[in-house]
């Protein structure tokens, strides 16, 4: 790639460069880090970066890998937190997952859907309370009524 004068500031030169601390929004994540050695045409004066057609494909592939890695890490920590308050098998039943699915996620043998990761994050924030709520909601749905509030003693 040829070096050229920065079309944004008119002062610096644009050339492919790596860098620390660069991130992009991607899907529902506000900022996903990209590797320091990932080369993006960048102005040496204003720091503006430019993305052409070929680089866009490469960058999307890179961000997708980072995204899947993030989902995998989040899912593992969420399952570990929830597991202290609900057996994994019961959690699978409550979430409508097949038996053993959470183990596959924990071991990195399956890629989780963002929807499931979102649900697990919500449950992991307060596993005792939220798993209890989920149990009550399913019980109430089965009987056609509204879920009863948790009793203070339980």
């Amino acid at each position, binding site marked *: 790639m040829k070096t050229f004068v920065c*079309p944004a500031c*008119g002062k610096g030169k644009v050339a492919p460069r790596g860098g620390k601390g660069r991130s992009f929004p991607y899907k*529902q994540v*506000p900022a996903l880090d990209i590797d320091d050695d990932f080369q993006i*045409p960048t102005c040496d004066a204003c720091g503006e970066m430019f*993305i*052409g057609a070929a680089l866009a494909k490469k960058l999307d592939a890179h961000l997708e890998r980072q995204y899947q890695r993030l989902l995998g890490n989040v899912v593992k920590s969420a399952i570990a937190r929830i597991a202290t308050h609900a057996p994994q098998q019961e959690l699978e039943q409550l979430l409508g997952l097949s038996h053993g699915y959470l183990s596959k996620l924990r071991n990195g043998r399956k890629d989780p859907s963002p929807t499931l990761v979102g649900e697990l994050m919500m449950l992991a924030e307060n596993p005792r309370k939220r798993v209890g709520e989920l149990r009550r909601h399913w019980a109430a749905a089965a009987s056609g009524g509204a879920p009863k509030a948790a009793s203070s003693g339980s």
Partner: protein
Amino acid sequence: MPEAPWHPLSEVKALVAADKFDLAVTSATKRILPHLLDRTIEGVRGFARAVIAQLRLVDFAHRVNLPRPLRKGFIVHDVYATRLTKTVTEMHLEGSQKTTWYVKLTIVTSGSRRVFVLSLHCLMDPIRRADGTTLSPTWKENE
């Protein structure tokens, strides 16, 4: 006589349609990606292609002349203010309420000619176009 775009709009459209364009990251990628249905870099490029394809000469607002160092002339930015069509908003945007957009672009010749889309975001302030009409941010129009 009203000011006209420095870079012929027909050439801008042809280059962008042929995928010969770059997006600036700060004001033409990161700022809008979270508001798109397809929240990927390819999604932003698809949106930019659609916006530029629907630009008209009446959308042109003004030029910005950016002096180059050592008196080597200017880089000329063309600024447009456009109202997106219903089709474009529904196809690309999450929520179709923001319909008035700001576009700033230039053409750079470095080997081949390429369009650089430097800004692409919804209008933040009213902007007067070269034909004398004013386009306002959507939230102001709804006040």
